[in-house]
Structure formats: C-alpha cells, structure tokens
C-alpha cells in the first residue's frame, strides 16, 4: 500500500464507480466492473439499476458475486428473467444505459478481446470467450471499461475482436450502424483513457495521484497520446475507501470456508 493509504486497485475501482450516475440502468460484467458498480450503488448512486446477464434485474447484493449468477444476485433482485429475455427484451431491445465491461486485452480503439491470445485456430492462450459482451458492447447506449493497465493488456491491435469498440477508429462504428455509441471511458489502475472525439483513439485524459505520465505510457502497447488538459483524478475519499474495504471483506468471508 502506498504512503497515502490506498492501493492502485482501490483507486481503479473507486474511480470506475464514480463514472456510474445515479438512476442509470447498468448491465454489469463480472469481476472488476461488478465491484465498481456495486460500490457506486453503496455510495453515490443508490438508485442505479444493476442487471446481470444471468437474469437478475435491479439486484442489490450485499457481497460481490464470484460467478455471474450467484444466489446472492437472484435473492436480492426485483425480478429474474430467463436468458432469452435478458438478451432480447432488455439488452438488444435497447433498455440499457450503461454496459460495464472488463477484458483481457484492449486496443487503441477500445476493441476488447476475451477469446484468444494468438491465432484463433492455434491459440497461445485460450481465454473464456464472449459470454454476453458482444451485444453489451453494441447495444448498451454507452459502455464503460475497467481493467488493469499493462503493456500486455493494452495492445496496438487485439488478436481477436470479441466485443467491438470503435473498430478501426473514426466513424467506423457509426457506418456499421451499431445502436449504442460505444466506450466513453476506460478506467485503469493508472488513470482514465477516453476516446478522441474525431479519431476515437484512446488517450490519457486523467491520471491517478502519484502516477507518472511516463509510467502510463510505458504500460501501453501503442504510442499513447496525452490530452493537453490532463486532469488528476481525485484521490479516494475516506467514505469511498471504507465502503469498498467493507464490501471486499464481506465478500472474502462469504466466499471462504464452504468446501
């Protein structure tokens, strides 16, 4: 833990949580997005509607789920709908304000890869695959992405486009006629990247306190551009940190000691 009392992972989750506005309808991916979305619900966005692809709508878990369909999500939901319905009526039907995604690999135009590293037919690493992400990426009105920033994860071009960001950049996405506008922010443990309005290339627009610009550039697999008005992310507040740590502690207790 750094001297100022929080970790880079905590900074990432807290700054990702802040992006979620109260009252919005959010389709949540498992892992880091799920932590951020629930932290938002427990802090500044009590009326955010969280939807998971297993079918729970308006879920309010007390502990973070390990899987996308833990009983905790089902038991605290307003309703649970079948899978055919969650993807058709709710997601591709156009009911989702924010899709919140993670990923193994992201490129300069915010395309995500969760399928393979290397060649598809002879992969170096076989990853889990698409799940619900391709439709979240194209049908949600807006997409937020959160993952840790390393040179291996932030690449010039993804080996496989699992979920479309801005494809080759510019107006490519608009030409393809996707319903949603695409990723508006990528929140990492080092800073926040947002797409250039014209080229759609991700650039560094906010840097977390205590992080050097050179460090972010060195952790990016393409020549990362830095916005002229580079902001410094506000450090985590005591209530934000307290709530996140309580959530993580409750979760760790709940997931241990059953087997």
């Amino acid at each position, binding site marked *: 833990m750094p001297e100022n009392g929080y970790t880079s992972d905590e900074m990432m989750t807290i700054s990702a949580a802040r992006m979620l506005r109260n009252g919005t309808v959010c389709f949540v991916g*498992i*892992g880091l997005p799920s932590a951020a979305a629930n932290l938002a619900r427990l802090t500044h966005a009590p009326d955010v509607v969280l939807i998971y*692809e*297993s*079918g*729970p709508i308006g879920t309010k878990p007390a502990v973070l*789920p*390990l*899987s*996308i*369909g*833990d*009983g905790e*999500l*089902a*038991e605290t939901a307003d309703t*649970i709908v*079948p*899978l*055919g319905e*969650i*993807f*058709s009526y709710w*997601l*591709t039907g156009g009911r989702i304000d924010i899709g919140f995604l993670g990923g193994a690999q992201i490129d300069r135009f915010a*395309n995500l890869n969760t*399928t393979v590293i290397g060649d*598809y*037919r002879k*992969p170096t690493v*076989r*990853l*889990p*695959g*698409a*799940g*619900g*992400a*391709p*439709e979240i*990426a*194209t*049908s949600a009105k807006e997409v937020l992405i959160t993952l840790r920033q390393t040179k291996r994860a932030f690449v010039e071009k993804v080996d*496989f*486009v*699992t*979920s*479309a960001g801005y*494809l080759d950049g510019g107006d490519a*996405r608009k030409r*393809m*006629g*996707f*319903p949603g506008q695409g990723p508006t922010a990528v929140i990492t443990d080092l800073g926040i990247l947002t797409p250039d309005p014209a080229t759609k290339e991700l650039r560094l627009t906010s840097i977390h306190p205590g992080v050097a610009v050179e460090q972010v550039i060195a952790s990016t697999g393409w020549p990362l551009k830095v916005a002229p008005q580079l902001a410094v992310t506000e450090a985590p507040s005591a209530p934000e940190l307290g709530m996140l740590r309580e959530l993580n502690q409750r979760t760790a207790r*709940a*997931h*241990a*000691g*059953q*087997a």
Partner: protein
Amino acid sequence: MVHDGDVVALEGFTHLIPFAAGHEVIRQRRRNLTLIRMTPDLIYDQLIGSGCASKLIFSWGGNPGVGSLHRLRDAVENNWPAPLAIEEHDHAGMATAYAAGAANLPFGLLRGYLGTDLPKYNQRIKFIECPFTGERLAAIPAIRPDVSIVHAQKADRRGNVLMWGVVGVQKEAILAARRAIVTVEEIVDRLDAPSNAVVLPSWVVGAVSEVKGGAFPSYAQGYYSRNNAFYKQWDNISREREGFQAWMQRHVTGTKDFEAFRQSLEQVASHA
C-alpha cells in the same frame, strides 16, 4: 438415455447445473459426444478431461470468477485427452438458438454478433436483411439436442417439474430436445406452483430422478448455496492431467453414485 455419439445439452446457468447427471455420463464412459452448453463450467471440464466429448458448442468457457477451465484448454490447445472441435457463439446467440429449437424453427434471429470476429471463425453465424426495414440481423441455426438434461428444485409424483431463481435456458433446452431428462432436489405430493411459474409438464419430460444436492458445487436456490470455495479448489485439482485423473478416479469413476461422491469428498475434508 445418453448414447455414444449423441448431441447432448446439460444446461443450468451457474444455478441448478446437473452435476450428478454429468457424473453418471462419465461413469458410463460415453464417448464421442457433441456437448452443448452456454457456460461449460466444471462439469464439462470433467466430461472433456475424461474423454467423453469430440465437439463442444459453447459461448463462455471459464471457471467463473476464478480463471480457466484447464481441461477444456488442454483439449483445445494440446488435443488432450482427445481432439476437441469447437463451435463458438456468444450468449445472446445461443439463447436465441435454443428458443428457435424449442419453437421448432430452423434458425433464431437477433440483433447481435455486430463487429465481433466470431462469424469469421464460425460459419454457422450468418447475417440476413430484415425484409421490412433492411436492418442487418444475425441468424443462428436452431439447437436441437438428442438429449437435454437439467436439474430443478421439485417434481410432483406425476413428473411435473418446477424450478425458480436463475432459470437460464433450461425450459428451452428441454423443449428443443428429442429426449429430456430432469433431476430434482425432491419429489413432493403437490407442487403448488403459481400459475406463471416455470413448470415443465410431465409429458415433455422423458424421465425424472430425485438426486438431493445434485447440482453441487453449483447451487439450488431455496436448498443450498453455490460452493464458491470448491470452484476455487477446482483450479488446483484440474491444473495438471495426473492430479485431475487421480481426483476423478477417487471421487467420480471410483464411486457408485452422487451420494457416494459427496461422501468421498467429505472424507477428504474431515482428514484435512
């Protein structure tokens, strides 16, 4: 009811995963199966690692919240214990394909697979133009398993089945299949199901079998919760071929049924 070479779907989306039935397929040493499942989960890792499958149709193949399915990866990356062909979709596509199967339609239609590379590698994902608006939509062939197997909470003595909670694509998988098998937590005199509950009438189900705890280590809402600690342990159990085989021999192929499997796990835990 499961034969060598069959197309088999064991469904249950994180919830009500039919582990007991899957173990029985392994014990009977079925071979050359085409396995269908949106999220292969640990049970397909076990089936694949045991050499039961020659093809997998899926949309997300990981150990949820933990990492890789090592046996699935070993089959795809190294052809161990046998080559495994894969047909890969996403969740929206597979859910649509099951619904098309249940509806006895040739294909399902969705506003999906936009911008993803999946259609480049899966020739069964096609695009068609809407005859009314011109919109480009994805078309996926219906899923029609020879056998579908699901686990549910309850059945009555006549064989009507009731499930609730995360119900996934279980109903569609049963209705899309030529033969349907259901295991349940308990058989009761009366279901007392609300009129809009998810009920599979007895006449669409070929066989119902009571297996208490039959979804372990997944969960059955109202009965027991997901054993997340076991999901984490599976990462180690399955990582190496030898360790996986020893575990399967000791706890699955070396036991006569699911109850004996659970007892053999408890013996290990009590000596730990």
